[in-house]
């Protein structure tokens, strides 16, 4: 079908541009950091889409899973010199384990979604305080990862560029996973659940199992990103369990468009760039400004365009192509 091929071409174009970007920005560390951050939020938001957009659970624990991944990988590296490549896997597993702990009791039959939202937010804060108090692994000061100038094994580089590509890889992975879920049983079950849970249940959909699967996939991605995050910053600290990061990720997920695979990525590109722009130009005085803007955007989208930014883009494209067809 024509649209299918067009879509594929667009994705390839995007990929090529994304791969080539560092060529334009490699000279500026700041810009590379910005790009890497944008992509990272893109990964997290795309993963969030699985639990938020498809399973319909407003998750506020992205920071929690990220932090767990970071601490797992970081501790493995610091104590036993285990490569963060393995740390990514381990981080993903630990995060997933926690996710199951939280999700299992809450996805019982007829427990309302709002409790999951509150519970996940609480989880992040609990983890933060726990790791602050837990001196052996965490503690109030930063724990620095061993320094290497350029080590593939230790995932330390003196430039952001390798991290950018690594995050890009994660992004592609997240997008592919998202796409695959959508077109298979889990995706159909999740969308059905989100639409009408009772009807879905009598059609054989195990609500709890489906939601748990979605949560586990999301948490494992966030955990893996956490491991990379730790290597990117070069240290681990309980502040990684960040409520504002969790909030941002969920806002990106919603604002982008919950049903659409590339929606959260689009939101990440737009909003995170805007945030950095604000931070660069207005500095510390207006620290909370970007969050206020995020909040306004969230409210506006929720009120007037719940299908998200991506749906606006879709409509614009549809109108443009139909006008082209008319001219032909």
């Amino acid at each position: 079908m024509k649209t299918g091929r067009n879509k594929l071409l667009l994705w390839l174009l995007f990929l090529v541009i994304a791969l080539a970007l560092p060529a334009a920005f490699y000279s500026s560390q700041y810009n590379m950091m910005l790009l890497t951050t944008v992509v990272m939020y893109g990964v997290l938001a795309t993963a969030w889409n699985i639990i938020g957009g498809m399973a319909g659970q407003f998750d506020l624990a992205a920071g929690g899973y990220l932090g767990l991944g970071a601490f797992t990988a970081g501790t493995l590296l610091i104590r036993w010199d285990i490569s963060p490549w393995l740390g990514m896997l381990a981080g993903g597993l630990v995060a997933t384990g926690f996710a199951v702990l939280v999700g299992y009791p809450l996805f019982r039959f007829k427990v309302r979604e709002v409790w999951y939202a509150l519970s996940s937010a609480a989880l992040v804060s609990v983890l933060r305080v726990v790791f602050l108090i837990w001196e052996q692994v965490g503690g109030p000061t930063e724990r620095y990862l061993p320094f290497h100038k350029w080590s593939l094994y230790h995932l330390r580089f003196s430039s952001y560029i390798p991290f950018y590509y690594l995050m890009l890889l994660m992004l592609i992975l997240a997008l592919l996973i998202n796409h695959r879920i959508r077109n298979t049983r889990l995706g159909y079950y999740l969308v059905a659940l989100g639409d009408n849970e009772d009807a879905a249940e009598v059609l054989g959909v195990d609500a709890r199992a489906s939601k748990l699967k979605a949560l586990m996939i999301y948490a494992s991605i966030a955990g893996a990103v956490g491991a990379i995050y730790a290597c990117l910053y070069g240290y681990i600290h309980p502040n990684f369990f960040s409520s504002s990061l969790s909030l941002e990720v969920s806002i990106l997920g919603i604002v982008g468009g919950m049903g659409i695979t590339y929606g959260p990525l689009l939101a990440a590109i737009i909003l995170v760039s805007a945030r950095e722009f604000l931070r660069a130009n207005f500095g510390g005085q207006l620290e909370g400004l970007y969050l206020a803007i995020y909040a306004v955007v969230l409210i506006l989208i929720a009120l007037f365009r719940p299908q998200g930014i991506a749906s606006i883009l879709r409509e614009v494209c549809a109108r443009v192509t139909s006008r082209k067809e008319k001219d032909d």
Partner: protein
Amino acid sequence: MLVEPLLKVNGLTKRFGSLAAVNRVSFEIYQGEVLGLIGPNGAGKTTLFNTITGLYRPDGGSVFLKGENITRLYPYSICKRGMSRTFQVIQTFNNLTVEEAIRVGAYNRHAEKAVAEQVGRIIPFFDLEKIRKKKCEELGLALLKRVEIARAVATQPDLLLLDEAGAGLNAAEMSELMEMLGRLRREKKITLCVVEHVMKMVMGLCERIIVLDYGELIASGKPEEISSNQKVIEAYLGKRAAR
């Protein structure tokens, strides 16, 4: 000749507070038959369905499907074991297309590779080819009911419970429905249990009928027997006279 019933309900009870909406109800459904479940409004028919299919937890009694105890199972487990149902108030998947809704049901017994085939079988059977890409929220009542039944049949049940499938349909749509149910029996070999108020449907379709009143089973037998049963007449007419 003793045949093992497809569904066996023993002394099932469901209470809401101190009110027993379903009170020690026992009956069987045999493979291949069409059982009618009738009774005045508020008799507890839908509650009975909900309790049998796992939406409600029973307070007493048991339910056996194909010899297996399904009393405390969740709805999805029961569906996996071969019992499916439709709802009195249609539960639509508003944002899904007809095709997608049926596919959800098809995943019950079919793996990824076979699902499309199953959908491909169900759609023509229910004559939904023309609207397969339409969103469910755009459909009218009769079509919605058809999609709801199609969804349930896609799960490939042995037993299908239909809760007032005929409500709100005009005469033509009703005949269509009856014909479709007949085909379900003959071609798909599905056993049916039908809750109905429309007597024409009940009498025309069902070989056996059970009657519920105030949560209790008051009569059971062939349509002719039921229509002349004293207790049944009182249950219906008695109410009307009281008004």
